[in-house]
C-alpha cells in the first residue's frame, strides 16, 4: 500500500507542495523559475491544473519529449497504410521510428500496404550542400517504379529540409501532375519546429486539409454513398488494435464507421471523411485541428469520447448516440447491456487485487487523463499525472473531468523530477514510456508502458479493458517485486558473539 492512500488530502497536498519545492532546488535559479510554472498540486474546483504548458523545453534537463517529425510521421501520417511515407533527410529519424508504435493494420506489406517499412532519402553531405530536391524527384520516381500499388506518397521533412531551403511543395506538385494526379503530400514537420510532437500533429492535420481534402477528385467522390449513420473515428492510432476494439462497438450500436484516422487507415478513408455525419474524436490533442476544420468547412459536428474502462465507455456510447435517432440510442443501450456481464466478471476478478493501489502517469496525447477512469473502475487511484506535450485545453479537461483534489501535476516533466516524485510518493505503479520504464523498474516500482501498451493491447473498448485489467494486475502483483532486495540486506547484522 502506497503512502498516498494512507494520508488525508490536506497531508497529501502539503507533501506534494514540499516535493515540488525540493525538486526545484536542484536547478540554477533561472531554470527553477521556469520549471516552477509547470509543477502544481491540483485544487478541486479549479478550471485547469494551474500549470503552464506547450512551452519550450529547457536545454539539458532530460525532457521526455520528441519532435514535430515524430508527431507527423510517427503519429498522424505513419499509420495511413496504403501510402508511402518518405522520411526525407538523414537516415536516423526514420530508423528510430520504424515499426515501434505498433499501429496495427491488415495488408500485404511491401505490395499494397507499407506501414512497417522505412523509406528514406538517406541524405548525404552533397544533398545538404546542393539541396535535396533533385534527389526527391528521383526518390518519387523510384517509388512509383517499384511500388505501383501505392495510393500516395507523403514527404516527412527532417530538420535539414527547412534549413537548406528545399522546395518540397514544388516537387510534390510537379510529380503529382506527372503521375496523373497521384496524391503527394509535402509535410513541413522538421524536428526543430515548435516545442514538441504537438506542432507536428498540427502541421500533419493541415497537410491533410491542403493536400488531400482540397484535391478530392470526382472519382473519389463517386466511390462513396452516404447513410445517415456514417461516422469517422478520429485520433485512434490502432495501437495493438485499439481502433478495431472501438470500431466493433460503434458498428454493433448501428453506426457505420467510414474512416479510421489514422490507425489501419487508408487514403480513401481520409477522402471519404467529409461525408461523415459525425466525427468522433479520441485523441483530442493530435486531431482536434482537422475536426474543427471539418466542422467549419463541411458542417460536420464532432464529439470527444473515451473508450478506456467501462464507466467512460458507457458515458461515451450514450454521448455519441445522442447525436442520432432512437435506433442508435437503443443500439447503444443494447451494446452496454451485452458487455455488462464481461465487465462485471473482469472487475470481480481484478478489482480485489488492485483496490487502493496508486498510479503515477506521464504520457502524451490523451492518456494522462483518459486512462484515469479505467484505473478507477479497478479501484485504483491516480495520484500524479502530466502531459508530455499537452496544451492548456488538455489541462482544463483534466481538471474538470478527471483528477482528484491534491493530485500532483507535472508538465513536460524532467527525468530528475519524475525520479524524485516517484521515489518520495512510492506509487504502486508508474505508467509512462520506454525511456522511463527501466529507470523505475530498477527502483523496484512496477511499470507499464502507456504509449505502446508494453507490446500488449488493445486497451480501448470492452475487449481492451479486459486486457488492460489483466496487464495492470500482472505488473503490480508480479512476484518479482518482492525480490528486489537481497534477503541478507534486511537481516540483522550478524554479531561477533559466535566468534568470540
Amino acid at each position, binding site marked *: 500500500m502506497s503512502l498516498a492512500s494512507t494520508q488525508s488530502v490536506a497531508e497529501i497536498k502539503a507533501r506534494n507542495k514540499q516535493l515540488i519545492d525540493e525538486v526545484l532546488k536542484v536547478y540554477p535559479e533561472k531554470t527553477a523559475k521556469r520549471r516552477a510554472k509547470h509543477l502544481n498540486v491540483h485544487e478541486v474546483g479549479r478550471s485547469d491544473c494551474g500549470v503552464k504548458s506547450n512551452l519550450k523545453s529547457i*536545454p*539539458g534537463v532530460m525532457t521526455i519529449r520528441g*519532435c514535430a517529425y*515524430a508527431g507527423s510521421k510517427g503519429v498522424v501520417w505513419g499509420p495511413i497504410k496504403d501510402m508511402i511515407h518518405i522520411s526525407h533527410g538523414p537516415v536516423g529519424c526514420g530508423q528510430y521510428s520504424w515499426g515501434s508504435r505498433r499501429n496495427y493494420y491488415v495488408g500485404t506489406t511491401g505490395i499494397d500496404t507499407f506501414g512497417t517499412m*522505412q*523509406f528514406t532519402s538517406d541524405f548525404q*553531405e552533397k544533398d545538404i550542400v546542393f539541396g535535396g530536391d533533385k534527389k526527391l524527384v528521383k526518390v518519387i520516381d523510384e517509388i512509383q517504379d517499384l511500388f505501383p500499388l501505392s495510393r500516395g506518397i507523403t514527404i516527412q521533412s527532417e530538420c535539414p529540409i527547412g534549413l537548406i531551403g528545399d522546395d518540397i511543395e514544388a516537387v510534390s506538385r510537379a510529380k503529382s501532375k506527372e503521375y496523373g494526379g497521384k496524391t503527394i503530400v509535402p509535410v513541413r514537420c522538421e524536428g526543430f519546429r515548435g516545442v514538441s510532437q504537438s506542432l507536428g500533429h498540427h502541421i500533419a492535420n493541415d497537410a491533410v486539409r491542403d493536400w488531400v481534402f482540397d484535391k478530392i477528385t470526382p472519382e473519389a467522390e463517386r466511390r462513396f454513398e452516404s447513410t445517415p449513420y456514417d461516422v469517422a473515428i478520429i485520433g485512434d492510432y490502432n495501437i495493438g488494435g485499439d481502433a478495431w476494439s472501438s470500431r466493433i462497438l460503434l458498428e454493433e450500436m448501428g453506426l457505420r464507421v467510414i474512416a479510421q484516422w489514422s490507425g489501419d487507415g487508408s487514403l480513401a478513408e481520409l477522402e471519404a471523411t467529409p461525408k461523415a455525419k459525425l466525427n468522433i474524436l479520441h485523441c483530442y490533442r493530435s486531431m482536434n485541428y482537422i475536426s474543427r476544420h471539418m466542422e467549419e468547412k463541411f458542417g460536420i459536428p464532432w464529439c470527444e469520447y473515451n473508450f478506456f474502462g467501462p464507466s467512460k465507455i458507457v458515458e461515451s456510447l450514450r454521448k455519441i448516440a445522442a447525436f442520432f435517432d432512437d435506433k442508435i440510442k437503443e443500439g447503444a443501450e443494447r451494446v452496454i447491456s451485452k458487455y455488462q456481464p*464481461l465487465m462485471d466478471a473482469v472487475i470481480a476478478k481484478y478489482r480485489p487485487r488492485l483496490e487502493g493501489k496508486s498510479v503515477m502517469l506521464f504520457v502524451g496525447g490523451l492518456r494522462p487523463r483518459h486512462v484515469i477512469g479505467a484505473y478507477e473502475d479497478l479501484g485504483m487511484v491516480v495520484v500524479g499525472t502530466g502531459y508530455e506535450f499537452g496544451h492548456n485545453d488538455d489541462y482544463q479537461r483534466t481538471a474538470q473531468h478527471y483528477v482528484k483534489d491534491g493530485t500532483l501535476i507535472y508538465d513536460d516533466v524532467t527525468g530528475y523530477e519524475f525520479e524524485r516524485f516517484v521515489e518520495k510518493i512510492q506509487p504502486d505503479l508508474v505508467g509512462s514510456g520506454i525511456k522511463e520504464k527501466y*529507470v523505475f523498474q*530498477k527502483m523496484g516500482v512496477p511499470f507499464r508502458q502507456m504509449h505502446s501498451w508494453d507490446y500488449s493491447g488493445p486497451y480501448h473498448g470492452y475487449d481492451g479493458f479486459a486486457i488492460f485489467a489483466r496487464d495492470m494486475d500482472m505488473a503490480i502483483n508480479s512476484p518479482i517485486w518482492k525480490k528486489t532486495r537481497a534477503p541478507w540486506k534486511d537481516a540483522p547484522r550478524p554479531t561477533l558473539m559466535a566468534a568470540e
Partner: protein
Amino acid sequence: MTQNAENVLDHFELFRGPEYQQMLANKRALFENAHDPAEVERIREWAKTPEYREKNFAREELTINPAKACQPLGAVFASVGFESTLPFVHGSQGCVAYYRSHLSRHFKEPTSCVSSSMTEDAAVFGGLNNMIDGLANSYNMYKPKMIAVSTTCMAEVIGDDLNAFIKTSKEKGSVPSEFDVPFAHTPAFVGSHVTGYDNALKGIIEHFWDGKAGSEPKLERQPNEKINFIGGFDGYTVGNIREIKRIFELMGIEYTILADNSDVFDTPTDGEFRMYDGGTTLKDAANAIHAKATVSMQQYCTEKTLPFIEAHGQQVVAFNHPVGVSATDDFLMTLSRITGKAIPTGLEQERGRLVDAMADSSAHLHGKKFAIYGDPDLCYGLAGFLLELGAEPTHVLSTNGTKAWEEKMQALFASSQFGQECHAYPGRDLWHMRSLLFTEPVDFLIGNTYGKYLERDTGTPLIRIGFPVFDRHHHHRYPVWGYQGGMNVLVKILDRIFEEMDKNTNVVGKTDYSFDIIR
C-alpha cells in the same frame, strides 16, 4: 463476443475471432478502395522476379529498410562508457528521445542522455544559448563527472562551433572551467552510427591527451606495458566486454577498456536506479596515452580513432569483429605478440572445446547457404566463422559498408573454397536483400530484428545476431567474442537449424519418418 475474464485474449487471438474478421473484411471491401486481390497477388509475385531485382538494384536515391542508424546514436553509445558521463547532444531534442528509446529497446535498460533542445530561434541565431543553459542545467541536476557533447544534423547544418560554444559556456560559468566537456561533431548525413562512435571516442581521447581544448598542456606519453581495448559499436557489449576482461585477466595483461559501457547497460534491479555505473575512469582515459598498444575489435568503428592513437606513438591493431576459431586465434596471438604474455592453457582448452563442438555439429552446417547483413565488421566476423564451419555466406550485405569493405570481404571469400559463390553488397539495404533472397535463395538469414520481415516474406529462417534486437530478450548478455563467444554463436545457429529440421519433418504420416529423436 470472444473476450472473457477467465482467459483474457490478447491481440494475437482476439482479432482472429469471426466478429472481428467480418468487420475487417467489410472495412476493406467498403471503405479502403483496396486493389483487386488478383492484382495484389500479381504484383507480389512480380516483386519476387529477377526483373524486379534488376529494377530494385537500379535504385539510386531511394533507400528502403536500411540496416544502419545515424552518427549521434554511436556517439551516445560510446559516451556512456565513461565514468559518470552524461552524453549531451547539441541540436533538436526529438533526436535524443529517439536514441534513448532505441538503445533501451535493445538492452532493456535505461539510457541517460540530454539534449540542448534547439528550436526555430536557435536555427536562426545559432544554439549558443542552448549550450550555455543546457550545460549548466545538466551539470547541476545530474552531477556528472564529464559531459560528452555531440551534435544532431540540425546543429551541423547551421554550423554551430562546439569548441567555441563550450569555451564560452565555461566563461559564462555553466560548468567549472576545469570540468571535462569533450566534444565531437557527428553529422547524421555522413557515415552511420559506427562513424559517430569513432568520432565521439576520438573526441574524448583527444580531450584528455591533447590538452583539453588548449586549456592544459598536452600529455606526454611515458610508455608502459598496458593495452588499450576498444570494442566499437556492439549490441553484445555487455557480454563481450566482460568476456574480454576475463581473457585479459587469464593472460595476465594489464589493460584499459576504452568506452566500457558493459555495466551501465546491465545494472541490477535492487531498488536503486544507477544513472551511471562502471565505465572507463577519466583517469584511465587520460593514462591510456601511455599504453604500449591499442587494440580495436572493429576496424570500421575506429577509422579515425586508431590513426590518432598511432600518431601518439602507440602500436595499433584492428580486427573485424572476430568470431570463431581462427579469428580468435589471431586476436589472442596478436595480444601475445604485443605483450609478450603466453596464451594460457585455460584458453587453449576453451579453443579445443570450440573445435570439438564444431566437429560434432559440422555435418549440419557444411554446405549450408547463409545471407548475412549488419555493420561492416560484424558481417566480416560472421562470414569468417561460417567459412570455417564449411558453410557458405552467399550474400553479405552492409548498408554502412564501403567499397573498401567490399574488397576486403571479397578477399575473404577468395581465401576459402566455401567462399567461391559468395558476394558482398556494400551500401545496399534490406529491400535489396529481399530481392537477393527471392532470386538466389539461401538456407538461413543472419541479421537484426528487422530481418523478421524478410523471414516472413521470403520464408528464409532468421537467426538474430546484430543490432538492434528488440524482439528477443537478453542475448546481449552473452558474448560472441572469444572461444566461448564462438560457442554461443554456434549454438544459436544450430538451434535454428534443428528447429527448422523438426518443423519440416513433423507432418504425421507424411514427413515424420525423418522426425528423428537424435540429430
